[in-house]
């Protein structure tokens, strides 16, 4: 906390929303040490549409969970909206997630016992600033409208198809008007038609200014993003910008690199 302003609320528009410096994540299991991520440096600017891709087990979801403050890095620094997350308490991290990060999971992760309306409203009920019921209602309906699911607001998740559930999950992520959407394999559990529909929604949102960071193993969908990161064995090996049509190799992709990472 600096001065009297909550670090969480300090927002500067032109600086990166998220900044990772030398991030590493190591898991320890029995006597085995697994380096899931190492030496990750990344800046996500407002309005970015970033995709993170790579083979299975390369650390994509781990990176996303670190970005979402769902897990903590073993090394390195992580700044979100200029706030160093290293010394934040669990509650401060929760507040940060609630205000600035919207999550979309691969398996939707809606709560079965709540209606669609209540699922989307859930993050708003966790707000410290106590939104009025009418505010919550209008935001929920607006978010549902964005994903064209307004008409199913009274239904339960298990009454919807996979594609519909994923759209509701996106609405839930949007309802809080976050700084960034973190999307984990949004089409992983969907057929191509529904997958395309979801990607269209995400593309539209980015066009409207929403910053999106998406993990996907699908090369087609990865290409929708303006910035693409390719991970291999926990390291960034390629960074490309679709608009500039350039590709930067961060490290040569060789077998020796793979073995060194392990």
């Amino acid at each position, binding site marked *: 906390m600096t001065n009297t302003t909550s670090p969480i609320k300090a927002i500067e528009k032109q600086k990166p929303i998220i900044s990772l410096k030398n991030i590493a994540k190591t898991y320890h299991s029995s006597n085995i040490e697994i380096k899931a991520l190492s030496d990750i440096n990344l800046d996500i600017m407002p309005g970015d549409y970033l995709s993170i891709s790579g083979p299975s087990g390369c650390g994509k979801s781990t990176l996303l*969970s670190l970005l*979402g*403050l*769902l*897990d*903590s890095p073993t090394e390195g620094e992580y700044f979100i909206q200029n706030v160093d997350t290293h010394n934040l308490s*669990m*509650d401060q991290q*929760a*507040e*940060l*997630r*609630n*205000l600035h990060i919207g*999550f979309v*999971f*691969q*398996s*939707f*992760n*809606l*709560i*079965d*016992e709540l209606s669609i309306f209540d699922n989307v409203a*859930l*993050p708003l009920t*966790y*707000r410290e600033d106590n939104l009025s019921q009418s505010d919550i209602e209008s935001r929920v309906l607006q978010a549902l409208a964005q994903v064209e699911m307004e008409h199913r607001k009274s239904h339960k998740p298990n009454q919807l198809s996979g594609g519909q559930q994923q759209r509701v999950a996106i609405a*839930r992520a949007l309802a*809080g008007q976050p700084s960034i959407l973190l999307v984990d394999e949004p089409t*992983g*559990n969907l057929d191509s038609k529904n997958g395309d529909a979801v990607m269209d929604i995400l593309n539209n949102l980015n066009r409207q200014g929403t910053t999106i960071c998406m993990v996907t193993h699908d090369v087609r969908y990865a290409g929708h993003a303006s910035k693409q990161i390719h991970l291999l064995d926990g390291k960034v090996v390629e960074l490309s910008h679709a608009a500039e049509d350039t590709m930067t190799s961060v490290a040569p992709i060789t077998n020796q690199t793979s073995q060194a990472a392990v």
Partner: protein
Amino acid sequence: MSAFIKTKTQFNLAFRSLKSAPGFVASVMVTMSLTLATLFVVFSLVNTYFLKPLDVLDEQKLYVVEQEVDTPVGTHSGFQSYKAIIHWYKTQSSFEKLTPVSPNNIMLTSLPGEPRVVATFAMPDYFDILNVPMLLGQSFARDLPLEQASDNVVISEAFWQKHFDRTPDIIGQTINDGERAFNIIGVVAKSFEPPYMFYSGKTDIWLHFGSDRRFFNNGEWDNPWDNTYKSLKLVGTANQGTSQESILKDLDDRIEDIRAEWLEGYETSTDFRPLVTPYRNVELGDKGHLSLFLFAGTLGLFLIAVVNVCNLFFSRALAQHKTLALQAVLGAKRRLLFNAILTQTSILMMASVALALFISAWGIKLFKHLAAGNLPLVKSLSIDFNLLFVAISLSLLLAYVFALVTSRLINYKALKNQLQSSGKGSVNQVSTRTVKVLITTQMTFASLLIIFACLALTKTHKTLDRPMGSKVENMYSFGAFIRGENDELSITERFDKIQKIKQVFEQLPQVKGVSLGRSPVSVRITKSTLADMDGKTTDFTPQAWVGSGYFEHTGLKLLKGRTFSDEALRGEKNEVMVTESLAYLLDPNGDVLGKVYDGHEEKNEVVGITENFNHPNYFDQDKGRHIWWPSRPFGYNFIIETKPGHTLDQEKVLLTLRNEDARFNIWQFIPLNEEYGRIIYMDIITLYLSYILAAFTLLLASVGIYGVLSYNLGLRRFEFGIRMALGAKKVRLYKLLVKDAIVPLLLGVILANIITLVIYNQFYDNLSPWLTFDISFALPAILISTSIAIYASIRPMQKIIKARPMKALRNE
């Protein structure tokens, strides 16, 4: 595949599956085996009391005859006079075998230490009726008439062991009571359990009924109609086809021959009648209710354990979800899944029951040791066919119930959907409502048991904490006599001699103080009545004969008046003292000093009122009421207090007495702290059992609550992960816990309290001997148990909240 191979395969699969979950198996087996073992022990008691046939000649025809007497203050039953019993014995026509039975203490002067033993006086039919097994020799000859004394004695195996060291030539040896010699003609096997109704089943020797000098004494002393004995009864096997009612009529008809004599001899009675009761009912007394009460408590424990284990099976089903889902996808029908679960539950339940039987064997042994002499029919407790049948039935039933409940809770259709949604735990298999009901039920049962354990504890603590009215530490009570001295010396001479003996003891270096009298600190007490000059009589009230210095010596305060005069102690005046509660019974203002009442003597003046004497075993009936009679010089009864660190024994006392007069014998020698220990023995056992029950219940309840919450939170771990990912803070998550877990928990506690109040008020008369409702005692217990349960609820949640949200999302 043949059925045998299918079963064998299923068994192997189940066994391997259980082997991979040792924690689960251990939890289930420990919970079930301990609880079942407790259930089996208590069931063996209930089985013995209500189901197992008694080891007697013909239980269906076996009855006990007592008398019932109407007096102006009420009807008294269960106290018999010799004259009535013998009249019925001689004149009845309803029994094919019949015996009067009466135990008494006698001193055997021919044995080292001149021990006092319990002798049961009975006729030869006693040994047939009660199926008494003879280890050696024989019982009494049949041809000896009732009134004729016999010089034969039958001894118990324990007596043979203790006093004769199991010498092989025991038959023909003699024992002597100072006046008569008895020839040992038989030894009763130790497997025989004498009836509890006679001196709590304690018998060392058996003598012919005609040898009972309380009645058959060559006219030396008349045992009057109103001199009644609790342990004097008739026991008999009725004639074939004779009902209880016809026996009653037969004996009632016989009363007409003696009615006039009875009424004249029993002045305070207005009417009387025989009381004929099936043997089992008299033998059990109120202990039958105790066993049922214990059984109800154990069943409650058992139910908690069953709910706990259900929870553990739910958790296991959750852990095996993916396996079950795969099987469903591969074509396994519901029945197959059920059989798989049933095989696992069957293995677990059979193992638990086997272990429980093993533990209960030891439990029964321990119970027999603790309860011997305090509960009837204890020797008959065993693992018998009934118990084995119950054990096997329970194991099959529980296996089926656990399998059924577990499989019902698995949503078969959702299993297949599980795999489609990548199985990240998003499907909530059990509704929140079900879990809330589980928590509420669990807590209600547990709280009920804990509350009732506390009520029993309260009762016991009250009994143990209540001041009795006599010191017992370093206190000894003994009675000595010299045969025939009452005929040799006048009352005054006896009085003076007693005073001299008192001084001799007072001068012993280890003695702190001496008073005259027989201490009322005794397992067995006697009672009598007081009648005012209008003929209004009190109920039977405990009594004791004490000297003037007794009260100051033993610490019982004299509240009003004075103690006995020397004239009263010499028998020249009739005085009586009463306790405060008796004074208030006699007079609403308690103002009885100077008033005169008839008792053993006529016109006894009340000279003093003392504090209440609260005998632990009789407080509920008598509320501290007590009659104090002056100790007349018919025997040498003393209460001696030794200095701290010093002790007294019978040999020392006898030596001291015989230094004054070599003819002295000791009738009884009782260290009062040991006697007090015997008095409160059952209360101590109840205390420990109640603490153990409460602790065990708390443990089971905590395990159960923890299990339910863990299971619930385990199911919802992913949900909590989502909520944390969406920004829910700790406070919000704890609020959710309060709503879903703490509120049902508290509801369970409230329900338990309401049920307790209702049960206690409805069944107050039956429960009040065992339970006391005291909120100051129950409240801390309720608070502690609730706190522990709340902690057991919060603990699993803390683990989830402390960890990173990603762990919850990964269901770690």
